């Protein structure tokens, strides 16, 4: 039998399209279901009140604040270290055993399960450095977790700056550092920001790394210092979904919706920055 190439092509396209749709469908369903079930719970009181009646009523304000603190702390720690490391790898290191070990370490770091980060944070920050279960410990743990994301994306952003810019700058008598500072880094910032925000979205949503390092089961007041424990959205969601009986489904899905919106919002910001960068790409 002779095969019809047009038919074969159509079938192939159809299969490829189906495979692609398979990715879109779950995302759409997750969003739809959570919005449908969670939206009724969302109101001003839910967002600004403390949890009441053993977390069966009231709001989730402390968890929102806790997540904000953790994400903020993680960025303060991870952004400078990540960018500096990326500058070293992209601009200074030569291709040798050391740089290959570092790159391998970064790849492996991004593959470590998040619960392992949690145990690591417990051992290092909570116990060894005696920070206790605190915002500091949690933020540092999350920071280490998103470090590979920031390093990798920053390195890509730095390496996408054309070499001709570096060459001209050096040929005008600029030092290597002046070149990085004045030419390379400014052109890489949109890419660095995109990667950082994606990393933060990840940090905001993770439960395991904060499980042992910071998360409070129930803490109706706001944290006062970085050595306090705090509630956080993902852990709160875990708690009211599995640990507390008779929690209204509305509250659970409402919490999930807030967390989801937070992460989607961050990703959206990253996408906007990236598309702006593409539009302004001038080389």
């Amino acid at each position, binding site marked *: 039998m002779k095969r019809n190439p047009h038919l074969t092509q159509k079938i192939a396209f159809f299969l490829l399209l189906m495979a692609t749709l398979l990715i879109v469908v779950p995302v759409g369903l997750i969003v739809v279901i959570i919005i449908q079930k969670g939206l009724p719970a969302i109101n001003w009181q839910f967002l600004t009140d403390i949890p009441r009646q053993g977390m069966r009523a009231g709001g989730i304000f402390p968890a929102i604040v806790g997540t904000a603190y953790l994400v903020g702390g993680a960025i303060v720690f991870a952004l400078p270290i990540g960018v500096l490391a990326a500058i070293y790898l992209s601009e200074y290191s*030569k291709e040798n055993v050391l740089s290959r070990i570092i790159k391998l370490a970064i790849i492996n770091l991004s593959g470590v399960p998040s619960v392992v980060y949690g145990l690591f944070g417990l051992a290092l920050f909570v116990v060894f450095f005696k920070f206790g279960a605190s915002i500091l410990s949690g933020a540092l743990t999350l920071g280490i977790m998103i470090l590979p994301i920031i390093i990798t994306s920053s390195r890509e952003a730095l390496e996408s700056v054309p070499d001709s*810019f570096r060459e001209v*700058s*050096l*040929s*005008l*008598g600029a030092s290597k550092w002046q070149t990085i500072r004045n030419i390379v880094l400014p052109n890489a910032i949109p890419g660095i920001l995109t990667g950082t925000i994606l990393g933060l979205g990840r940090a905001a949503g993770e439960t395991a790394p904060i499980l042992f390092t910071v998360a409070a089961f129930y803490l109706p007041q706001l944290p006062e210092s970085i050595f306090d424990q705090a509630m956080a959205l993902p852990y709160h969601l875990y708690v009211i979904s599995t640990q507390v009986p008779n929690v209204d489904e509305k509250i659970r899905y409402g919490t999930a919706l807030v967390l989801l919106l937070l992460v989607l919002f961050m990703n959206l910001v990253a996408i906007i920055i990236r598309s702006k960068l593409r539009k302004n790409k001038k080389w």
Partner: protein
Amino acid sequence: MAKIVTQDLKLWYGNFQALKSVNASFEAQMITAIIGPSGCGKSTLLRVLNRMNDLTEGVRTEGQVLVDGNNILGDGADLVTLRKKVGMVFQRPNPFPLSIYENIAFGERIHTGRVKRDVMDEIVERGLKSVLLWDELKDKLKSSAMSLSLEQKQRLCIARLIAVKPDVLLMDEPCSTLDPQATARIEELMYELKRDYTIIIVTHSMQQAARISDDTGFMLLGELVEFGKTKDIFTAPKDKRTEDYITGRYG
């Protein structure tokens, strides 16, 4: 007077010898052209003169390059001072993705740090005037240099370099991306600039070399085959290979 002299200059990329004992002397306030077929080492020779070859890994040099009598090869050379004195215009016009103003201000900013606004304005104006761009661009100094035409970009790059106040302009096929009219105008500009600067231009256009240069060097396979007055090279070449090249037998 010779501004730059190379003595027995040899250069290797790894095991490949790209320059074989080059002895040349580049006169001040003159245009020296280096011609030769692709891969003959002419760009390499140009890039040794302000040590841009250092950026390539595995480069090794022997011999001497004297700029104003000082050898610039070796570890002791101050690259920042050298590159301020011996600047480079590249093949592809490569302004920074900054405003026109900031492109020209770049050199001053990195070399003197904080500069008063009116001083900087003057530097930018002088730079643009020296490449005959001022009248065209004086009303859009804040717009991006990336929006300019190729010719304007290349002029801007020359202005950016001149603002650093170099003595020597190294030009690596500066017209190869330009159309014939733009090329002619850049050549006119080089003629203007020759009064104040030592210009060394690499070109694969023999006509260009014949039109604008005072001295010409012909390179082949890393060797400086012949070096002398442009007139002599093009009318009475001494070496058979030079003759073959300029009469179009290869290249």
